[in-house]
C-alpha cells in the first residue's frame, strides 16, 4: 500500500517534470541564417544609416550606426555632461536656464528629424524634455544642441516634438492638465474639471536658420495629451493628438482614467488656427519662459526670459479642433505615408482602430457629431473609422510604416511587433521582442518616404539578453530586417538611458549635409578668445581673475601662473588653436568643482574655478591629443588671501627673481 503510494507520487512527479520540460522555450536562439553577415560592417566601412535614439532619463540623445548597432556619439541636450563640460562651462550654462532657474537634467522621450516636402532632410533633429517642458533643436552639421525653448502653460511635455511636413511647426502638447500660468493655480486639486486646462504649443521654425519661435498656443479641455503626428500629403494642415483621461480624474488614474470605453484622437486644423490668429482672435497672456540660443561664432549660449504668449481658445472657436472617439486610453497616434490613415493605439484595447482622413473631412462637412466635449465637437466613431485590425496582440503602442502599404505595430503586453496591411487590415506577420517593447523606428518611417529596409524595436526590459550587471540591466534595441515578407531578427544592441522614440536616416543624407570638421578660428568671435599665444594674458579685476589661455599640441600658454589668491574667482577662457579635424584638447584643474572641458579645434570655452587652499595646483589636458599629451600641463600658485605675490604668467621661461619669494 505504502509502496503503491510512493510509486504513484513518483509517477506524478516524473510526469509533471516531463510535462514542464516540454513547455515551449522563450527567447532562445532567435537569430538564424546569415543574420551575422547582414549586420557586419567591416572595420573602416561605414554604416548605412544613422540612428538617433532618445536618452530617456539620461536627458541626452545617442547616435548609433545601423545595421551594426555601434554607438557613435552621445549628444548632450538637457542634462549636464561632465565628459564635455556641457552645462558646466560658462558658455553652456545659459542653455539649461529656465523660468525657474538652472535645471540641469531632464527626461528626454521623443526625437524628430526635420523634413522638407514630408521627406527627411538631415538638417536638424528636435528633442523634447518631458519634465520641465522644453523643446531642443540639435544642429546636425555640428551634432550640437543649438537651441532650447521652454513651454509656458504646460506641465509635462509628452506629445512632442512632432513636426509638420515642411518643418513649419514643431508641436508640444501638455501631458498633464493644469491651470494656465495666467490663471490662479492655487486651487483645490479636486476642482480639476473646472480649473484645469490643456495647452498645445505651436513653435514656428525658420526655414533657413532653424531658429524656433513660440508662435501660439491652443487652450483646450484639461485632459492628458499623449502622442501626436502631423498630417501629410492630403492631410497636410492637420495635426493629430491622442488624449487619455477624458474622465478628468485627478487621483488613482490607473483606475479612474480607464473608465470610459473610448477616449479621443484630437484632430487640429492648424491652418484654420493660423487664420484665427491673423484675424486677431488670439489673446496675449502673461507668463514666463526661457528661450536659449547657441551662437556658433561666439561659442556662447544666451538665455532670454520672455513674458507673454499668444493663446487661442480652441473651445470657443468650434472649427479648429475635432475629437474622434478612440478605444481605449489611446497612446500612439501615427499617420501613414499617404496621409490618409490615422492609426490610434488603445493601450487597453484588443484591436487597432484605423481612421480615414477623407471620412473625417466628410463627417465634419456633414456635422456628423455625436455631441461635444467641453465645446469641442465629437465625431461619430463609425463615420470616421476606416476599420479595425482584429486580434492583433495585447497592448498596442506605436506604429510605423514601410512605404509599401504595410504598418508595423508594437505590443507592450505581448512583447511583439506585428505587421499588417493598412488597406485590408489583415495581420501579415509577427515577431517576438525581448521584452516589453515601446516605440519602434523604421528609417523615415513617420515621413512620406520611408526607407523600409530595417525596423528597430526599443525595449524596456532585457532580462537574460546580456551579461547581468546587478539589479539594473542595460537598455536595449533590436534590429529586424523587414525587406522580405517575413520580419527577421538580426541584432540586439544596448543603448543608454531608456530609449523611447528614435529617428533614422540614410548615412549619406547626414554626412553630406555640410558637416563641420573644425571651428574656423578666424570666425571665432568669443569675447575672450586668444587667437594665438601672443594674445594670451592673465587679467585681474578685483577678486575676479580672467585667464586668456590657448592650447595646442602639446602645451598650454601660459603654463605657469602666479599671484592667484584664495577667495579669487578665476575664469579660464581657453581657446583650442588647432585647425585639424578630430584634435580636441581637454582641460582640467586639480579639485575642479565643476567638470573638465572638452574644447574642439578653433573653439573657446570657459571654466570657473574658486581656489580654496594655498599651494601649487596643476592643470592638464584630459583628451589624449599627441605623443606628448602627458606633458601638456601647467602649474598655478595659489597664495593666501591678501598676499602680495604679484600676478605673473609665462611660457617657456622661468619667472623673474621678484616672484621667487
Amino acid at each position, binding site marked *: 500500500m505504502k509502496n503503491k503510494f510512493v510509486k504513484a507520487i513518483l509517477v506524478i512527479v516524473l510526469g509533471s517534470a516531463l510535462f514542464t520540460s516540454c513547455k515551449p522555450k522563450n527567447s532562445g536562439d532567435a537569430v538564424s541564417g546569415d543574420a551575422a553577415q547582414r549586420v557586419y560592417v567591416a572595420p573602416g566601412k561605414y554604416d548605412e544609416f544613422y540612428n538617433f535614439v532618445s536618452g530617456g532619463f539620461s536627458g541626452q540623445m545617442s547616435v548609433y550606426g545601423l545595421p551594426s548597432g555601434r554607438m557613435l556619439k552621445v549628444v548632450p541636450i538637457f542634462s549636464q555632461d561632465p565628459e564635455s563640460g556641457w552645462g558646466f562651462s560658462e558658455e553652456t550654462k545659459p542653455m539649461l536656464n529656465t523660468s525657474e532657474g538652472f535645471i540641469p537634467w531632464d527626461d528626454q522621450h521623443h526625437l524628430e528629424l526635420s523634413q522638407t516636402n514630408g521627406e527627411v532632410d538631415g538638417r536638424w533633429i528636435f528633442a523634447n524634455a518631458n519634465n520641465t517642458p522644453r523643446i531642443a533643436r540639435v544642429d546636425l552639421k555640428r551634432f550640437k544642441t543649438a537651441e532650447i525653448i521652454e513651454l509656458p502653460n504646460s506641465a509635462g511635455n509628452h506629445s512632442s516634438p512632432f513636426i509638420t511636413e515642411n518643418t513649419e511647426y514643431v508641436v508640444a502638447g501638455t501631458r498633464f492638465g493644469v491651470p494656465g500660468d495666467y490663471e490662479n493655480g492655487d486651487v483645490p486639486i479636486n476642482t480639476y474639471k473646472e480649473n484645469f486646462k490643456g495647452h498645445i504649443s505651436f513653435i514656428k521654425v525658420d526655414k533657413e536658420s532653424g531658429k524656433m519661435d513660440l508662435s501660439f498656443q491652443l487652450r483646450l479641455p484639461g485632459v492628458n495629451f499623449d502622442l501626436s503626428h502631423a498630417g501629410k500629403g492630403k492631410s497636410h494642415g492637420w495635426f493629430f493628438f491622442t488624449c487619455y483621461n477624458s474622465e478628468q480624474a485627478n487621483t488613482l488614474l490607473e483606475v479612474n482614467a480607464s473608465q470610459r470605453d473610448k477616449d479621443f484622437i484630437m484632430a487640429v486644423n492648424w491652418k484654420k488656427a493660423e487664420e484665427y490668429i491673423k484675424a486677431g482672435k488670439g489673446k496675449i497672456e502673461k507668463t514666463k519662459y526661457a528661450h536659449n540660443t547657441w551662437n556658433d561664432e561666439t561659442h556662447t549660449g544666451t538665455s532670454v526670459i520672455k513674458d507673454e504668449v499668444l493663446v487661442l481658445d480652441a473651445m470657443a472657436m468650434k472649427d479648429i479642433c475635432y475629437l474622434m472617439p478612440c478605444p481605449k486610453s489611446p497612446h500612439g497616434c501615427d499617420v501613414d505615408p499617404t496621409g490618409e490613415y490615422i492609426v490610434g493605439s488603445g493601450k487597453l484595447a484588443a484591436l487597432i482602430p484605423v481612421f480615414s482622413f477623407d471620412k473625417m473631412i466628410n463627417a465634419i462637412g456633414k456635422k456628423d457629431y455625436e455631441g461635444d466635449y467641453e465645446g469641442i465637437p465629437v465625431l461619430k466613431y463609425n463615420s470616421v473609422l476606416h476599420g479595425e485590425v482584429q486580434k492583433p496582440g495585447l497592448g498596442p503602442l506605436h506604429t510605423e510604416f514601410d512605404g509599401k502599404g504595410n504598418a508595423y505595430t508594437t505590443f507592450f503586453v505581448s512583447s511583439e511587433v506585428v505587421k499588417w496591411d493598412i488597406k485590408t487590415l489583415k495581420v501579415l506577420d509577427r515577431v517576438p521582442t525581448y521584452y516589453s517593447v515601446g516605440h519602434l523606428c523604421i528609417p523615415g518611417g513617420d515621413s512620406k518616404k520611408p526607407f523600409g529596409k530595417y525596423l528597430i524595436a526599443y525595449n524596456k526590459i532585457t532580462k537574460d539578453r546580456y551579461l547581468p550587471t546587478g539589479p539594473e540591466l542595460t537598455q536595449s534595441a533590436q534590429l529586424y530586417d523587414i525587406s522580405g515578407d517575413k520580419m527577421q531578427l538580426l541584432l540586439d544592441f544596448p543603448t543608454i538611458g531608456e530609449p523611447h522614440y528614435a529617428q533614422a536616416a540614410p548615412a549619406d543624407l547626414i554626412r553630406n549635409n555640410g558637416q563641420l570638421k573644425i571651428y574656423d578660428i578666424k570666425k571665432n568671435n568669443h569675447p575672450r578668445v586668444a587667437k594665438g599665444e601672443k594674445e594670451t594674458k592673465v587679467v585681474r579685476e578685483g577678486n575676479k581673475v580672467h585667464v586668456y589661455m590657448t592650447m595646442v599640441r602639446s602645451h598650454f600658454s601660459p603654463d605657469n601662473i602666479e599671484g592667484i589668491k584664495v577667495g579669487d574667482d578665476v575664469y579660464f577662457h581657453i581657446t583650442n588653436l588647432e585647425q*585639424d*579635424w578630430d584634435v580636441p584638447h581637454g582641460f582640467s584643474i586639480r579639485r575642479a568643482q565643476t567638470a573638465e572641458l572638452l574644447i574642439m579645434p578653433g573653439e573657446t570655452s570657459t571654466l570657473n574655478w574658486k581656489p580654496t587652499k594655498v599651494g601649487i595646483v596643476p592643470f592638464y589636458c584630459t583628451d589624449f591629443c599627441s*605623443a606628448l599629451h602627458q606633458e601638456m600641463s601647467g602649474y598655478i600658485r595659489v597664495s593666501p588671501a591678501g598676499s602680495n605675490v604679484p600676478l605673473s604668467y609665462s611660457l617657456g621661461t622661468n619667472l623673474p627673481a621678484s616672484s621667487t619669494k
Partner: protein
Amino acid sequence: MKENNLTILSKVLLVIVGLLFIGSLFVPMWRIELDAPQYPEGLMLQLHANKIGGDVDIINGLNHYIGMATLHTENFFEFTILPYVFGTFAFISLILVFINNRKAVFGFLITFVLFVILSGIDFYRWNYEYGHNLDPNAAIKVPGMAYQPPLIGYKQLLNFGAYSIPDIGGWMLTGAGILLFVVVLKEFKFKKSI
C-alpha cells in the same frame, strides 16, 4: 623668305607656350603629399609661384615634434621673384612670335632648361636645409634620421610617407618645355631638309 623665319605652326605653339606660363601663375606648381596612420585623409603641401599653400598650419604644428623649422611664405625669396620670372618667360614666348627667329627660340629653350636645373638645385637645397637643420631640443630624436623630402618621387619619413610630384602648374611648365623643344626640333629639322 629668310632662312631663320618660323612656320605658322611654330608661332601658334609659341603662343600656347606663353599662355601656359601665364596659366602656371594661378595654380600650384608642386605638391608634397604626406600620409600617416592618423591622417588617412592625407596632408598636402602645395607650392605656388608666390606662396606655400595646403595644410601648412597643420604641418607646421607637427614639425615641432622633430624640431623641424616651421614653413612661412615670407622666408623664401623665391616667392617674390618667381611670378616675375614666369611673367617674363610668358612675355618672351609671345615676343618670339614677332622676332620670328628660330635661333632666338633655341636660345630661349636653353635658358628655360637652365632655369629648371637651377630650380631643381634650389628646391633640393631647401629640402636639405629643412630636413637636416633640426632643433637640438626636439622631443623626438632618431639617431641618424633626417627628414628631407624627396626631390621627386616617394620616401618614407618615420610615420609619414612623403610623395613629391608636380602639381597642375608644374605640368603646365613641363608642357611648355616640351612644346618649346618640339618647336626647336621642327624648325631645325624642317629648315635643314629644304
